[in-house]
């Protein structure tokens, strides 16, 4: 157990593991996402109320899911950064923050596109939308802080503090805007309850969520590998790796 823990902190070890897992993550993610999207977009039944426009849910819900869980993952990694000073944890935070920003933007964008036919407007100041917008700001702040500090280690620790402060605030922000204004439909997707939607819609949605998670795993590995190469550029194993690649 402890050996595993120590290994996890070693960028070189991670590099090897990531290389081994990445093809599987990519293939699994693409297959699941393709299956979910084709099923959802072409074969799932129409919604009796919203017609075909509801089909954007197969992109909207998975992105919103990831947008939120990436922040939670970043916060967990931030704890590891601050407590154990593990190199990989801050590589993770730095690498996935822009991905989280992208998914948050995607969720907001698809939400706006969906809102136009269903609510008749691109944007409403509703609780869910507002809290996603604030999440976008939190991601933006973390990225901006990271880019403003030149020293890699201090940047990582400062961002970790900020992300943790943000994660304490997320429930507060969520409840305050919920209380403030609510128009958005309740969450479609709860693991603990029986789905409120038809099975033919729910299964493809589940497939796209899982597929996007796997793809996120692949993207995170890819970005972390790049970041590791930059950070460890002076170490012998990276030099050997690059020289071997050149041959």
């Amino acid at each position, binding site marked *: 157990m402890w050996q595993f823990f120590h290994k996890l902190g070693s960028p070189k070890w991670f590099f090897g593991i990531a290389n081994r897992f990445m093809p599987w993550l990519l293939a699994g993610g693409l297959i699941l996402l393709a299956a979910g999207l084709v099923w959802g977009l072409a074969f799932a039944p129409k919604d009796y109320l919203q017609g075909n426009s509801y089909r954007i849910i197969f992109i909207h819900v998975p992105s919103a899911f990831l947008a939120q869980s990436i922040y939670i993952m970043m916060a967990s990694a931030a704890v590891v950064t601050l407590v154990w000073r593990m190199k990989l944890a801050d590589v993770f935070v730095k690498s996935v923050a822009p991905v989280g920003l992208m998914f948050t933007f995607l969720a907001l964008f698809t939400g706006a596109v969906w809102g136009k036919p269903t609510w008749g407007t691109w944007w409403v100041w509703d609780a869910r939308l507002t809290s996603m917008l*604030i999440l976008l700001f939190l991601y933006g702040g973390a990225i*901006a*802080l990271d880019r*403003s*500090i030149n020293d890699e280690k201090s940047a990582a620790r400062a961002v970790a503090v*900020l992300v943790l402060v943000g994660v304490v605030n997320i429930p507060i922000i969520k409840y305050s*805007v919920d*209380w403030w204004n609510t128009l958005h439909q309740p969450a479609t997707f709860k693991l603990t309850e029986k789905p409120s939607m038809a099975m033919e819609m729910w299964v493809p949605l589940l497939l796209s969520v899982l597929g996007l998670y796997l793809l996120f795993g692949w993207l995170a590995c890819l970005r972390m590998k790049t970041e590791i190469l930059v950070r460890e550029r002076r170490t012998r194993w990276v030099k050997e790796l690059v020289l071997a690649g050149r041959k």
Partner: protein
Amino acid sequence: MNVNAPIALKKVDSSVGVFQAMVSVFLRDVRVAFRQRQDLLNPLLFFTMVVTLFPLGVSPEVAFLKQSGAGILWVAALLSVLLSLDHLFRHDFDDGTLEQLMLQPQPLFLLVLAKTMAHWLLTGLPLVLLTPVLGLMLHLDGNSVATLCLTLLIGTPVLSLIGSIGAALTLGLRSAGVLLSLLIIPLYIPVLIFGTGTVAAAAEGAQVSGYLALMGAFLVLALTLAPFASAAALRISLSNS
């Protein structure tokens, strides 16, 4: 004088109690601030000017001002606190006082708490005191003004406390001012929502004790958690420079 003699280290006076240390940090900040009186005045001028922009820029109609006056005052107060946060640690950072504070035997987070409280006394409280005058100019009725002042009284210390985290994180960075706003504004949103919500409820004649209790909860949460985060951020920023 014998040059070879070892330099006597000043004995660390650990007999100073924690509370005493906090009080002296607090009094020092107040004293320093009163020697730079313009810095005390600036947030208040800014506050007044931002409030002036709304009737000029949106509408001077009484109905509009009555409806949005509380929100305008809250946003203006929030921005003024935000603007003044840069001063919280900057001078002490520049002249090395902060490093000395860090070396004290007393826990840093308590000293940071004392500094933040001094900051509130010097910026937050004057804003609260100025609010009735501006509220009158925005045609708010007496009841609304009273509630507004109460929410600001509870809310501005929260703004100072949360802001101290941002000020500590951006210490010594190039574009600290804008960055500070980017980091802190999202965290201010709940305070703003409940602050203005309380006034809106009071205007409708509803009970406000529940809202005030929630704002009090924010204050307690910020008082207990923010100084730890600020102290951690200060250590990071100072190890960076």
